[in-house]
């Protein structure tokens, strides 16, 4: 798919044009959790890492947070004090209050207390947490706790902000606040990386990396990923029969049908689906979700991916 033209070794450590990985792999025992992944996070931009369960998102983000060493390949990161990290599902201390959580994190990042409390006040006010200042983090709703976690990880204005699923399970109102914080961190100059399983959310990012079973499925701007989608898509009211059935999936109450190689005759039967139910539907301009679904489907059809995954999840071998 579209690459951001990696040039290993060409940029010196003094030129932080990007943070990220070059051909990084991570092995857990005999399982390859990350398989030659090249990813760049650019200051002032938001990048989304997408993929389902077992895709390798968390492994990549842990590498970017400096919490996990790659088994092979290069990882280029700021010094630890210039990284902000929110791990999946936690990131706050449940038995500390909101204020205590922020003060603790600020001191860990060696941020002067006066600056820390000024920034905390501003971000808490803006995201509707001001009234919860003295509540224990463990007593906050999921959305409030995630907002607190993101604020805690960006308080020191890091060069690289790494957020693992900040919006999963969060309602749309809190999600809007979270995205305001994310945009604010990028506006302040951070390279922001967030993991998500929601493609409509990823479409809001400037750059997207899609992973499946530890490998790169697609990368680039949402527009580039869509433009690089192989074959064509059409919409059908009914699920097609015959061979095309495996290339169809449900979306928006109708069926998307992917034709891998129109024109060159390399794959799929020419002239549309075989079955009577599969009336040739209207051609469709795909979006990011379509393009990523096609990439997953193509891997599955080629036998590189075992259906919904196999026991243990995400094992590419």
């Amino acid at each position, binding site marked *: 798919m579209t690459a951001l033209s990696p040039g290993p070794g060409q940029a010196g450590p003094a030129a932080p044009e990007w943070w990220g990985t070059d051909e990084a792999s991570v092995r857990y025992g005999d399982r390859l959790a990350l398989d030659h992944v090249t990813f760049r996070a650019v200051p*002032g*931009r*938001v990048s989304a890492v997408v*993929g*389902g*369960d*077992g*895709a390798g998102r968390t492994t990549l983000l842990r590498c970017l947070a400096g919490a996990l060493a790659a088994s092979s390949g290069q990882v280029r990161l700021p010094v630890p004090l210039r990284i902000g990290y929110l791990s999946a599902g936690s990131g706050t201390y449940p038995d500390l209050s909101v204020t205590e959580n922020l003060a603790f994190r600020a001191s860990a990042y060696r941020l002067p207390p006066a600056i820390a409390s000024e920034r905390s006040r501003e971000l808490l006010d803006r995201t509707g947490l001001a009234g919860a200042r003295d509540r224990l983090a463990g007593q906050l*709703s*999921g*959305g409030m706790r995630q907002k607190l976690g993101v604020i805690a990880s960006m308080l020191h204005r890091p060069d690289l902000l790494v957020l693992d699923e900040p919006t*999963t*399970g*969060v*309602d*749309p*109102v*809190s*999600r*809007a606040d979270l*995205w*305001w914080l*994310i*945009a*604010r961190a*990028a*506006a302040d100059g951070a390279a922001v990386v967030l993991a998500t*399983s*929601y*493609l*409509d959310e990823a*479409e*809001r*990012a*400037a750059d997207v990396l899609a992973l*499946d079973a530890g490998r790169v499925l697609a990368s680039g*701007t*949402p527009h580039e990923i869509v433009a690089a989608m192989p074959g064509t898509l059409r919409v059908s009211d009914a699920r097609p029969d015959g061979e095309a059935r495996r290339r169809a*999936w*449900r*979306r*928006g*109450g109708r069926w998307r049908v992917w034709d891998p190689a129109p024109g060159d005759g390399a794959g799929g039967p020419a002239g549309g689906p075989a079955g009577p139910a599969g009336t040739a539907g209207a051609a469709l301009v795909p979006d990011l*979700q379509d393009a*990523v*679904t096609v990439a*997953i*489907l193509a891997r*599955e059809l080629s036998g590189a991916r075992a*259906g*919904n*995954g*196999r*026991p*243990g*999840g*995400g094992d590419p071998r």
Partner: protein
Amino acid sequence: MTQPLAECVGVSRRFGHFVAVDGVDLRLGRGEVVGLLGANGAGKTTLIRMLLGLLATSAGQVLLFGEPPSRRTRQRLGYVPQTLGLYDDLTPAENLAFSEAAFGAHPGRGGGRVTASALPESLRPFSRTVVGSLPLGVQRSAAFAQALAHQPDLLILDEPTSGVDPLARARLWETVAVAAAAGTGVLVTTHYMDEAQECDRLMVMADGRVVAEGTAGQIVGDARVTVVETVEAASWAPAFAALEAAGMPAALVGRTLRVPGAEPAEVRRALGPIEASVTGAPATLEERFFELTLTSSRTRAPA
């Protein structure tokens, strides 16, 4: 319409002085897929708990299959909670067998023991693996299979596809569509607007009330937002700051900004000297949802 599968008439529920659900009407017919949208605290879970018969109403009436919720109506209902409701240390088939034993056999289905052959095709490869070791997408399929095993007339799904890839999500929705085509009514809560588009009809709740109802297109209606595209791509950051300072919070999408609830002319003024194209555009369902929720919280006196 023939008798609805589920019906709420003026249903309210108070907890002390707090009104969690406030005069909700709902009708769900055979084969209908209805999406319930709302922020946390909007009343969705309370409403579902009343439909499940786990919580009494404070006012109004809930009818399932024409009668008040009871153990009997519970047998005709399938439910997939957010937490999936599976035992991690049992296989999918064992989970299924346990749930059938606990439910009792569905009328007309016979009381035979459930075996792996009762599992859908897609779950067969996993029949000997305990649920806790399965990928999340497979766990979700197993939860769906379990909720559908007794061929319920009504299926209630709470955030059914969170955390799975888009193809796995599409396949879970195929399962829902097959059940709906066979006549099962489906009520689904989601925070995910793309998923909401799978529903025949949506209900948006805010502060315990239904604030909008209809198809996604009907709910969005002619709502619009203002879109700002700065000439210098990197200038989105100063534009973001300028709009924030003017009290027009913007949402970042790629490197453009979307400003709800503000006219292009006001946005243009707030941007000052920043060069940008400023245009109106139709709102998305999420943007419209957000507006409905905010309007509700502004117009409602604190309870």
